[in-house]
């Protein structure tokens, strides 16, 4: 801390305790022998075993994974195109409407999005016979729609920060626009695409409300199962599931952070080395 104000340190401590306390408790009680959440009955992993025997939860997890992978992927493609439009295309007809449609899902209450999409699917089915019934497809479409808004925000920020002249350099050296985009722009956008995809995947995996509206009777996602079992009361099995999800997210983020940190350190080292070599070159006299 530059200014070690006790007030600021206290706020941080309180804030993080508030954010992490409940999660840590959840993890702790997932290893509780006792069924009663508040009574410590000794260490046990039996809830994990029970979790993996629960077919309903496992099926739902598979549905969620499928929906998550598909919607995150489609959303990444559409979100990248949207970001490209907004940053690179200048004025086009209907830009204002598009800007509205792409930012609104970020804040739109989920009940509204869910209801409106369900009514759309019903109307479409009546009108053209598609989608026949509701299930994984309709959930995927619904999730793609709100995930693409998030992907757009992430990719747009990165795209705006890119040096335009790098693409121009590619074209100057003979690459046609599509090739310049595929060979130069896309690789430079890669970090944003990866984080956009992960964000979309997480949001999809997390969504209860929209999925509840647009899911059919045969397709139940993981949050829907969790929700109905939570409504019935606390279950240590859910604690075990929560622990697994938290650990998964944490490990993924830590690995990503570690890779970034290592790259940065390597770059710093290489640049200082290059500077030293440069100095040597000028010191030994110029050969030109």
């Amino acid at each position, binding site marked *: 801390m530059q200014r070690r104000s006790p007030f600021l340190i206290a706020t*941080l401590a309180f804030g993080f305790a508030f954010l992490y306390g*409940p999660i840590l408790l*959840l993890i702790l009680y997932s290893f509780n022998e006792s069924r009663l959440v508040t009574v410590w009955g000794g260490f046990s992993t039996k809830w994990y075993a029970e979790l993996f025997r629960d077919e309903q939860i496992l099926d739902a997890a598979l549905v969620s994974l499928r929906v998550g992978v598909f919607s995150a992927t489609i959303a990444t493609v559409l979100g990248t195109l949207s970001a490209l439009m907004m940053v690179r295309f200048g004025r086009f007809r209907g830009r204002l409407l598009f800007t509205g449609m792409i930012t609104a899902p970020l804040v739109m209450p989920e009940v509204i999005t869910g*209801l409106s999409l369900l009514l759309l699917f019903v109307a479409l089915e009546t009108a053209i016979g598609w989608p026949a019934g509701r299930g994984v497809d309709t959930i995927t479409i619904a999730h793609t*729609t709100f995930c693409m808004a998030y992907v757009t925000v992430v990719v747009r920020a990165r795209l705006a920060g890119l040096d335009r002249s790098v693409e121009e350099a590619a074209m100057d050296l003979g690459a046609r626009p599509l090739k310049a985009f595929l060979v130069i722009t896309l690789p430079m956008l890669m970090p944003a695409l990866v984080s956009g995809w992960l964000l979309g995947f997480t949001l999809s995996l997390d969504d209860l409300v929209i999925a509840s509206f647009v899911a059919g009777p045969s397709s139940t996602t993981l949050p829907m199962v969790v929700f109905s079992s939570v409504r019935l009361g606390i279950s240590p099995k859910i604690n075990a599931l929560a622990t697994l999800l938290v650990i998964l997210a944490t490990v993924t983020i830590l690995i990503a952070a570690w890779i970034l940190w290592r790259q940065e350190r390597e770059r710093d080292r290489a640049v200082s080395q290059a500077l030293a070599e440069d100095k040597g070159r000028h010191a030994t006299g110029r050969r030109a």
Partner: protein
Amino acid sequence: MTGAAGPEAREQAERTWASPGASPGGPDRDRPLTPIQRLVARFGRGLVIATPYGWLLLFFLLPFIIVLKISFAEFRLGVPPYTPLVTWLEGGYLHLKLALGNYLFLLDDPLYITAYLTSLKVALVSTVIALLIGYPMAYAIARSTPPWRSVFLLLVILPFWTSFLIRVYAWIGILKNNGLINNALMALGVIDEPLPLLNTEVSLYVGIVYSYLPFMVLPLYATLEKLDVSLLEAAADLGSRPFKTFLTVTLPLSLPGIVAGSMLVFIPAVGEFVIPDLLGGADTLMIGKVLWSEFFSNRDWPVASAVAIAMLVFLVVPIVIFQHHQQQHADRTEAG
């Protein structure tokens, strides 16, 4: 080295490197295009625009139009469970029937008015609390030294990536009658019987603030981090005391972050369903929950649609503020 070697060397190089068949010294304008290249050259821009645009028109705008339409229909038993607005009468006449009954019903029944007002109040109070907790946090993170800053930021983002539902669920175990807080207080002898914490307004606020806190901290951090420290030093140098400097320099400059963070908390909180359902009491009826039960329990699609449209009317102003702010921010970064 004299300039004399220049042109000759270049000519020789051209002979060596020019690819066979290229027009002498000219550009490769005759390079044949593949069909895909031709397609992209001709329609590339249009294709890029049409795909996401079409998707959003179909899956974002059209659904709202349908909701609007159904909100003017009447409930009926059958599939679909609402009456058509437009019917063909005999003789080819088009008959349009707008049923305003759903909206009148909303106005008539105090349940809905109360639910709307409660939602706005709960969202507003939660936003203020989140701001009061989030601002100092964001400020502390922005003022910390680089390695710590990344760690703190990671800690703020991390809950983002863990299940929202499970984080809300965690509070049940803490707040319920035989939950952690009550057990602890009773063990310490502070209270004799459990405090009613779960299913009250308190638990509702705790849940909302807890869930949306990262949405408040991140935009605040983004603006506070960009704040030039030399501005604060200049203010101090000119004789302003730290608190005064905060009020006159830091706070106004972080206003964009405050607006963005508040909108990111307020707007979704108005329509929140999961938190009021799991943590809120029976007496704090929020509109998201009303819409849910209208749809899933009563199966009254027209009334649910009317509830949604009315909710949107409440939210139009904050949504427009949010979008305006987003656009300004994007324009600034894209221009710079």
